[in-house]
């Protein structure tokens, strides 16, 4: 079996005790917080069902809501740019920055911008891009990508952050949270004041009013969208809600599911650029709506995954994510949601292993506040993978399984032959190695049970006789 890039990344992650310790501690904190906080909702299941209905309805009528949203943004004095691909999105943003002769850009967290490799493209053109979310700032200094949807630096500890910040400071900073945040605040404050352009993501766009809503905890989002003269919002085309009424449900579910908070520290609403009689805010507002593969999911059997509100709770409860962290998944979105949407957005040919990076334990589905059956979508992807690029040896093995396990005669024969064949390897009823692949993968670390001397089928007659 040749090892793939995915397996290489997994091996690397599994050998990194530091990473695994950090991820385990952080996910434990997040998932416990979630469970405790959900108790404050009278009936979580009812909330989930409402949230699922809202998201499914919105995605079903996505074209209509996007049109309303676009018209409203323009009415409010903003500009809307459509991007079918990542390249088109980058081109729009690049052009806006060029028009403003921007030298410096401040950003507040946007996962979509990671899809676009935006920082890289802007930096190539000598535009400084500064991530202002503390976690994003940390990984920018570490020259890494986010490893979690909402806690991008989940794989770091105070000590590793202290190392990174000390290098920027030119002096040794203590590995204490207040000192480290104070340092980041000092550095970033000047960046906010200097930047010509501010770029943010978008938690939700409200169709009825043309508003953009941001959930943040650090206040940096508000600086980014109020201090620079030009404001760019990057949103995935699915991040829309009909009105503020539906936002109420999301506002109750997203922070609880994500970080175990009742509500985030800041909920900012942007209603277009600064009006003539207003004292502050950006003078120009641009909303870049990114497709980048999403419209291919619309109308397919995977449509439900567009309901995702990017809370990250599926990551926190996933036992696979817990062991390997986010980078092993290889692209922007890790964990169960990543294992589903990465192949959908960027191709199953390239990402065919991700749907198998799950034991199908369904913890993700159980945690999802909008009830996406991620375990079922993983199965669908496996079916598609088998259909389009099946592995010949595996196909043959399952063909043999199907024949032997659908005929009593063949099944009985298989057990009989197996019992004889296993003899050289059995010690105390267990097999410790020596079997061919793929069972050898099992016996590397675990004993395999020997076939019972008499199967239940064979025992049945005696059992029955004993009863009568």
């Amino acid at each position, binding site marked *: 079996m040749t090892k793939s890039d995915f397996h290489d990344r997994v091996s690397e992650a599994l050998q990194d005790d530091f990473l695994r310790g950090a991820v385990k501690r952080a996910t434990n904190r997040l998932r416990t917080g979630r469970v405790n906080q959900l108790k404050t909702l009278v009936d979580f299941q009812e909330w989930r069902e409402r949230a699922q209905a809202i998201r499914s309805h919105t995605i079903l009528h996505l074209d209509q809501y996007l049109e309303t949203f676009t018209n409203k943004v323009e009415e409010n004095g903003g500009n809307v740019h459509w991007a079918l691909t990542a390249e088109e999105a980058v081109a729009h943003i690049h052009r806006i920055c060029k028009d403003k002769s921007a030298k410096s850009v401040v950003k507040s967290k946007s996962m979509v911008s990671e899809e676009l490799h935006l920082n890289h493209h802007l930096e190539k053109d000598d535009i400084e891009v500064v991530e202002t979310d503390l976690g994003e700032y940390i990984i920018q200094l570490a020259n890494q990508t986010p490893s979690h949807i909402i806690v991008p630096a989940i794989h770091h500890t105070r000590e590793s952050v202290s190392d990174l910040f000390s290098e920027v400071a030119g002096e040794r900073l203590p590995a204490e949270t207040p000192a480290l945040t104070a340092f980041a605040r000092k550095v970033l404050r000047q960046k906010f004041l200097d930047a010509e352009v501010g770029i943010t993501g978008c938690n939700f766009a409200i169709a009825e009013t043309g508003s953009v809503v941001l959930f943040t905890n650090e206040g940096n989002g508000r600086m980014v969208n109020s201090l620079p003269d030009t404001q760019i919002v990057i949103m995935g085309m699915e991040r829309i809600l009909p009105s503020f009424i539906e936002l109420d449900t999301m506002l109750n579910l997203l922070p609880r599911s994500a970080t175990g908070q009742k509500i985030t520290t800041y909920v900012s609403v942007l209603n277009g650029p600064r009006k003539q009689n207003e004292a502050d805010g950006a003078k120009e507002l641009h909303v870049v709506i990114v497709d980048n593969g999403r419209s291919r999911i619309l109308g397919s059997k995977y449509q439900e995954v567009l309901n995702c509100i990017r809370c990250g709770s599926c990551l926190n409860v996933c036992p696979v994510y817990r062991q390997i962290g986010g980078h092993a998944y290889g692209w922007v979105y890790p964990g169960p949601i990543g294992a589903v949407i990465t192949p959908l957005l960027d191709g199953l040919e390239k990402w065919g292993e991700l749907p198998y990076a799950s034991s199908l334990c369904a913890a993700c589905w159980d945690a999802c506040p909008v009830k996406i059956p991620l375990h079922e979508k993983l199965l669908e992807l496996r079916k598609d993978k088998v259909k389009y690029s099946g592995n010949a040896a595996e196909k043959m093995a399952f063909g043999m*399984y*199907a024949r032997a396990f659908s005929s009593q005669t063949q099944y009985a024969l298989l057990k009989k032959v197996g019992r004889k064949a296993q003899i050289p390897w059995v010690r105390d009823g267990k097999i410790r190695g020596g079997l061919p692949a793929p069972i050898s993968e099992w016996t590397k670390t675990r004993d395999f049970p020997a076939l019972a001397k008499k199967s239940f089928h064979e025992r049945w007659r005696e059992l029955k006789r004993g009863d009568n």
Partner: protein
Amino acid sequence: MSKKVSLFATCVADMFFPQAAESAYRLLRRQGLRVDFPKDQICCGQPSFNSGYVDESAKVAKELLYAFEDTDYVISPSGSCTAMVRDNYPILFKNDPKHLAMAKDFASRLYEFSEFFVKVLGVKNVGAKYKAKVTYHHSCHMSRLLRVKDAPIDLITNIEGIEYIELPENQDCCGFGGTFSVKMADISNAMLNEKIENVMSTGADILVGSDLSCLMNISGGLSRKGYKIETMHVAELLDRGLRG
């Protein structure tokens, strides 16, 4: 109850752990039920289904549908095989109306072992006595897909003499996941190691479960590490407590 109760042993129990199916049989008999074992049964088709091989699964699943066509209740000592029938047969046979109807009918008669005792028979105490420190592994298919979480614990804690210790992090998968355990062997093993640490931290003499495949995985790891802790199906523990 004069209805006809049939045992679905599952292929894993049949081949590797026949004693678990035997215990389940004895416990059902003790409730005064007439229990039979339709001999045409083999496997629910889960291994291939979870790997994306639909046609192969349908072939295996059909045999099971016909094997249990003529019974009132079907009892299985496996949460995951029960969940396979309830949740996945409708997907498997969605373009095959005849077998879809059979599958729906089968699902309405099929119960996991503890679920049947507590929900259908209303029995939480089988009258067993056994002195041991016990912990329990909640298999994912049992607790999340079938939503059967309390029933096995009720049956265990009602055994006279049992000291029950809750398994820490009991919501986490043991890392089995069918072919996941060999396809993603390293991740699977990392998950198993965490599970084993948690099991050993309880100081229990016996690890009980409701899914023999998960137990095969956990016991395989425990025995490789040389840990002396027994693993068994709920039915086996109850049976042991009745046989003295």
